[in-house]
């Protein structure tokens, strides 16, 4: 990226400090917007930018905001989803650690657009050091009048509070996040009603991912057209692609939406690790169906990945090399979802544990030929039947493994 200003992750050790942020032109977009534009204009601009959610679901942010009823007396809330539990995903951590004020400015813009006066950043409990940095940044911003009772001297007031999670992947699901924030177990809620009408403390609530919000100051600094131009017409901007696993240069790469996956893996992440060939690629966080090596020419945008029956999700790319037996991957995937299942609804509660038991038994040498079919049957049994998307999340990768790598599993069983 050539323009140091137009990036989500600025270089430099002290990039997170307010002084550095102001030096990059920080808070100017928010100031101008609040003092000269109407909330409806902000919403329209975001719609124009085709900013899609970067947490996993890819829902257009502007549309989501538009669901919030404006003529409503109840207090409205913004929850910034900083739970980042999807394996292979480490982008929000970088934004918050290196550019917390970018996130805060984005929060100001979002809240102004929707009429929100209180925003919570729900951050996973493991990110304690980052939570403290956010709190320091909030204090810095308050001191300067960028947050608080009269922002930039206007009538707009906003409070941002950091709220820590305590070790639960499911609390990254938006309604489980609300339950957790309200001090309860992370059991997702039945939808409808949707959070936009009944959310936090039963008020209208918008929940957006960190990266989604962090893009807002850039959209308002440089314009929606600029943003769309950086990506694709239907899916604007850049994504922070996190690459990890069996690659030479694991890391975070900010690239236009639509960059081909092969390019990201080979040109940016250095290609597969020494002495290994690619066996499988997770394209969008663990909950996305796995790809085979001949599927990695796919452009990394929502539609293209949906077209090959996978998903962009959180853009967490994990490269699995041929030195790793696929059964080990299956075991880890199954164990992860079984461990994180909240237990509320039957298919996920039982299905994830059952699949995990089968995978462990297979890995320990006790596999029987019917196991692959059983796993497929159980994953299909969870798909589309659960109270929250975690059922699908648990089913997709498992199904892709038994469908695309079933041969290797069958050979392992027969040995």
């Amino acid at each position, binding site marked *: 990226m050539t323009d140091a200003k137009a990036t989500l992750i600025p270089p430099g050790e002290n990039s997170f400090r307010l002084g550095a942020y102001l030096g990059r032109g920080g808070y100017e977009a928010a100031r101008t917007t609040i003092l000269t534009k109407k909330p409806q204009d902000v919403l329209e601009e975001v719609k124009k930018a085709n900013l899609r959610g970067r947490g996993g679901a890819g829902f257009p942010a502007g549309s989501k905001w538009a669901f919030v009823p404006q003529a409503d007396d109840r*207090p409205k809330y913004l929850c910034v989803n900083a739970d*980042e*539990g*999807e*394996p*292979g*995903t*480490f982008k*929000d*951590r970088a934004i918050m650690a290196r550019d917390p004020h970018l996130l805060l400015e984005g929060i100001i813009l979002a809240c102004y657009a929707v009429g929100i006066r209180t925003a919570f950043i729900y951050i*996973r*409990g*493991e*990110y*304690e*050091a980052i939570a403290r940095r956010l709190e320091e940044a909030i204090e810095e911003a308050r001191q300067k009048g960028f947050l608080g009772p009269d922002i930039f001297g206007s009538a707009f007031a906003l409070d941002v*509070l950091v*709220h*820590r*999670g*305590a*070790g*639960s*992947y499911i609390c990254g699901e938006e309604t489980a996040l609300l339950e*957790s*924030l*309200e*001090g*309860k*177990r*992370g059991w997702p809620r039945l939808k409808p009603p949707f959070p936009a009408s009944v959310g936090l*403390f039963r008020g209208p609530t918008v929940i957006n991912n960190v990266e989604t919000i962090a893009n807002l100051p850039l959209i308002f600094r440089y314009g929606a057209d600029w943003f769309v131009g950086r990506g694709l017409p239907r899916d604007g901007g850049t994504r922070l692609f*996190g*690459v*990890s*696993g*069996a690659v030479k240069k*694991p*890391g*975070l790469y900010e690239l236009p939406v639509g960059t081909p996956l092969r390019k990201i893996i080979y040109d940016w992440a250095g290609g597969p690790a020494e002495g290994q060939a690619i066996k499988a690629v*997770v394209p969008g966080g*663990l909950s996305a169906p796995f790809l085979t090596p001949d599927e990695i020419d796919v452009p990394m945008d929502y539609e293209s990945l949906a077209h090959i029956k996978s998903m962009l999700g959180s853009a*967490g790319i*994990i490269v*699995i*090399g041929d030195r*790793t037996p696929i059964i*080990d*991957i299956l075991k*880890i*995937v199954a164990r*992860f979802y079984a*461990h*994180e299942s*909240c237990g509320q609804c039957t298919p996920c509660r039982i299905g994830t544990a059952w699949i995990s038991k089968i995978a462990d038994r297979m890995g320990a040498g006790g596999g029987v030929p019917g196991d692959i079919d059983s796993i497929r049957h159980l994953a299909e049994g969870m798909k589309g039947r659960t109270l929250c998307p975690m059922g699908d999340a648990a089913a997709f990768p498992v199904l892709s493994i038994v469908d695309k790598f079933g041969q290797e599993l069958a050979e392992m069983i027969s040995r």
Partner: protein
Amino acid sequence: MSFSLSAEGAKRVEALVRRYPKMQAALIPVLHLVQREKGFISPEAEEWVAATLGIPALQVREVLSFYTLLHREPVGRYVIQVCRNISCYIAGSEDILNHLEKKLGVRAGETTADGKYTLITVECLGNCDHAPCLMVNDDDYGPVSRDAVDGILMGLT
């Protein structure tokens, strides 16, 4: 009630409770606070938190049993969390785990007899480009080798 926090801790609890329209929402932040001060959340602490927030103690316990970062039993001064998810596994997390188990003389899930270390395995810590990674209390480490692990342990007083 026999349980109490330090003056500073009590002040911070009050500030936390004021932040939310419903007191129950302060539960997890307050539990974190209690755990930071006392190391874990005892039955007396549960009762105190329940009374402070005006919620049944049963609901405090329900929440405690759901979240993995909150401990109902004493843990070591240093809680070592070793990630075993995909990227870390590929990078050799199992070897690191074995090394730590041998070095500390405990299995994953246990606390050393001197109360210094608790070793636990966890799912993705969100640090995948530094695999294999682990955390010691609030600090991230990664990528770690066996030597690096030894160095970390030596630095923990």
